[in-house]
């Protein structure tokens, strides 16, 4: 009886080893997986950013003398990904457009900021973020009068 149990155990172990060996034979990945799809995961607005490019003073209500930051979170890997921030006022008057071409190697934060030395006109604004030319996310914000 003990003998047959030992044989059974040995068989089970052999099956497990063969199975593991077969898995090991399979190439992990024959393609050079150097890039994945880059996507915008979040856009945060605020008055200040930290060294990690994340917004430290988050808001969507600004004062005329504020510097306005938009921190764009992306995920994915690429040799080149183009981020563009298009800031508009009121019914679509363009305030500013800026592009930054990055080579992300995973999660990344990219900040865009705008300032106006003589103060922002009060009203409704928005920033639209484009990734490789395609609109990825839009955030609205307001500048309130003094």
């Amino acid at each position, binding site marked *: 009886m003990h003998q047959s149990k030992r044989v059974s155990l040995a068989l089970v172990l052999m099956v497990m080893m063969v199975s593991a060996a077969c898995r090991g034979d399979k190439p992990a990945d024959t393609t050079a997986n150097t890039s994945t799809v880059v996507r915008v995961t979040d856009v945060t607005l605020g008055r200040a950013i930290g060294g*990690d490019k994340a917004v430290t003073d988050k808001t969507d209500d600004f004062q005329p003398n504020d510097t306005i930051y938009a921190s764009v979170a992306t995920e994915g890997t690429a040799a080149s990904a183009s981020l563009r921030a298009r800031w508009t006022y009121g019914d679509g008057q363009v305030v500013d457009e800026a592009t*930054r071409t990055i080579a992300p*190697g995973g999660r990344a934060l990219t900040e865009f900021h705008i300032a106006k*030395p003589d103060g922002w006109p009060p009203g409704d604004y928005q920033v639209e973020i484009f990734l490789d030319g395609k609109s990825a996310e839009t955030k609205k914000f307001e500048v309130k009068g003094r």
Partner: protein
Amino acid sequence: MGIFDKLGKKDDEKPKADFSNVQSGSSSTAPDATEPSASDLGPTGTSGQTAADDTYVVVSGDSLSKIAKRQYGDMNQWRRIYEANQDQIKDPDLIHPGQKLKIPRA
């Protein structure tokens, strides 16, 4: 023409806001795509390019320590910005709105 017509007309003729002096900039935790990788370098191994610094446009009320706080999260890092911009900052207590400062990468 009634008062409401006048008001409506006045609203239609409202001049557009002037954004000609807007200053902007950007920076990222990801490297710039324009930076050459080792495999992009020519036979001599040099490309003549250096890693781009971030830029920051000074606005009213800024000081080097405030900018350092925003960019690095530590106002004591102001000297890094000062040293990277000594070509345009003579006195670290005196910077001007509109100045474009190089922000060395952290």
